[in-house]
């Protein structure tokens, strides 16, 4: 089952108005070439789910500069002044989510769980409009699962079935997002044949992945 396609074909699958997840943490472990191709494609009115909005010239931040998002859910936007500008001008809706909550919300969607019960954000703006659930006398926020139409993730070494080996700190949200989208596209630094990756070292199984794109270094 060979899932390798061209970057152009991969990008053609993302439509105006889609909700996309993009892996990475301050652009570390982000599929940089897929992002470049999305900027070139001009696809718009997207909703972004991402840990952060990277930088104006690196990571998903390039799509912010190209004004491709109508809504952004992220834990941090401080490294990309353009996100703040668009937020303050009202051009883009920005929802700030605690990083651990964001991670669990994505995992919940991918794992068939009904939501996340966390104490993070209690007593802050984060709890506004949300239900609380009491378990054994302790109060928790009920945070709902988060899914996307498309997840664009990164892999260091990826086989043609979509199994992913991550090097260093690049696992971050990639591992979670791979499970929580209708269409999962991985941008691989290096593509290898099926059987070349040790099944003990793979962190994302190819069963989650629909397409593999070779990005190179």
């Amino acid at each position, binding site marked *: 089952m060979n899932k390798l396609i061209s970057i152009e074909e991969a990008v053609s699958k993302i439509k105006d108005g889609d909700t996309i997840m993009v892996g990475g*943490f*301050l*652009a*570390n*472990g982000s599929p940089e070439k897929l992002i470049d191709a999305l900027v070139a494609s001009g696809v718009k009115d997207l909703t972004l789910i991402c*840990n*952060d909005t990277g930088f104006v010239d690196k990571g998903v931040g390039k799509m912010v500069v190209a004004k491709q998002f109508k809504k952004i859910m*992220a*834990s*941090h*936007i*401080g*490294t990309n002044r353009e996100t*703040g500008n668009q*937020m*303050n001008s009202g051009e883009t809706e*920005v929802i*700030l989510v*605690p*990083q*651990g*909550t964001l*991670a*669990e919300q994505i*995992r919940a969607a991918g794992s068939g769980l009904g939501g996340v019960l*966390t*104490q*993070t*954000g*209690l*007593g*802050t*703006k*984060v709890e506004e409009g949300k239900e609380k659930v009491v378990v054994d006398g302790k109060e928790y926020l009920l945070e709902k699962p988060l899914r996307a139409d498309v997840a664009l993730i990164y892999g*260091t070494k990826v086989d043609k079935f979509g199994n992913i080996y*991550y*090097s*260093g*700190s*690049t*696992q*971050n*949200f*990639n*591992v*979670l997002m791979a499970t929580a989208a209708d269409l999962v596209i991985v941008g691989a630094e290096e593509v290898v044949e099926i059987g070349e990756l040790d099944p003990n070292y793979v*962190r994302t199984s190819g069963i989650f992945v629909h397409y593999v794109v070779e990005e190179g270094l």
Partner: protein
Amino acid sequence: MMDKEQTQNFIARRTAQELKNGDLVNLGIGLPTKVSNFVPENIEVVFQSENGFVGLGPEPEECDIDSHIVNAGGMPSCILPGGTFFDSATSFGIIRGGHLDATVLGALQVDEKGNIANYMIPGKMVPGMGGAMDLLSGAKKVIVAMEHTARGNPKILSECNLPLTAVSAVDLIITEMCVIEVTDKGLVMTEINPEYTVEEVQAATGATLIIAEDLKEMK
């Protein structure tokens, strides 16, 4: 008077003395990151980087740079022998799950209830909370390490007026002027930098300080 860097190093050095042998610690970006440079030599502390590993090394300069490894500030970084990489859900499982002995964070405001504001100034600066809300909710000990004032204005208040990052979360505040414990009775100053008088510290603070009976010299 210390310059900005001396001030930050002074705060970081004192903060490092709070860490214990075997502790797992997360340092916020900015001033808190400097704490790793001052860990006493006779103890072993493991640092977590919430983007996905434990075993964060103190000085990226000292190792071969691998572009796949960055710290929580996005800067090139290293992993020490015995470290481990993992995903963000595992990382915040560590943080929320009570596995973190301490976190050191900066703040815009801290108040006498232990409330802290450090992620947004409405209409102006809105960087976002990143992992701070989880760290404040999950770490066994929360230390705020920051300069005592911002452009002369107190940051330690009777009540925060910026949006809170967490409620009743802060255990200890360390500044260039003093060390303050957050207690049920209020803010107790336990140590003072001998360069300042109690009156000067109080004047720079927006909350009434309780002076510890055995007030010590801050080193």
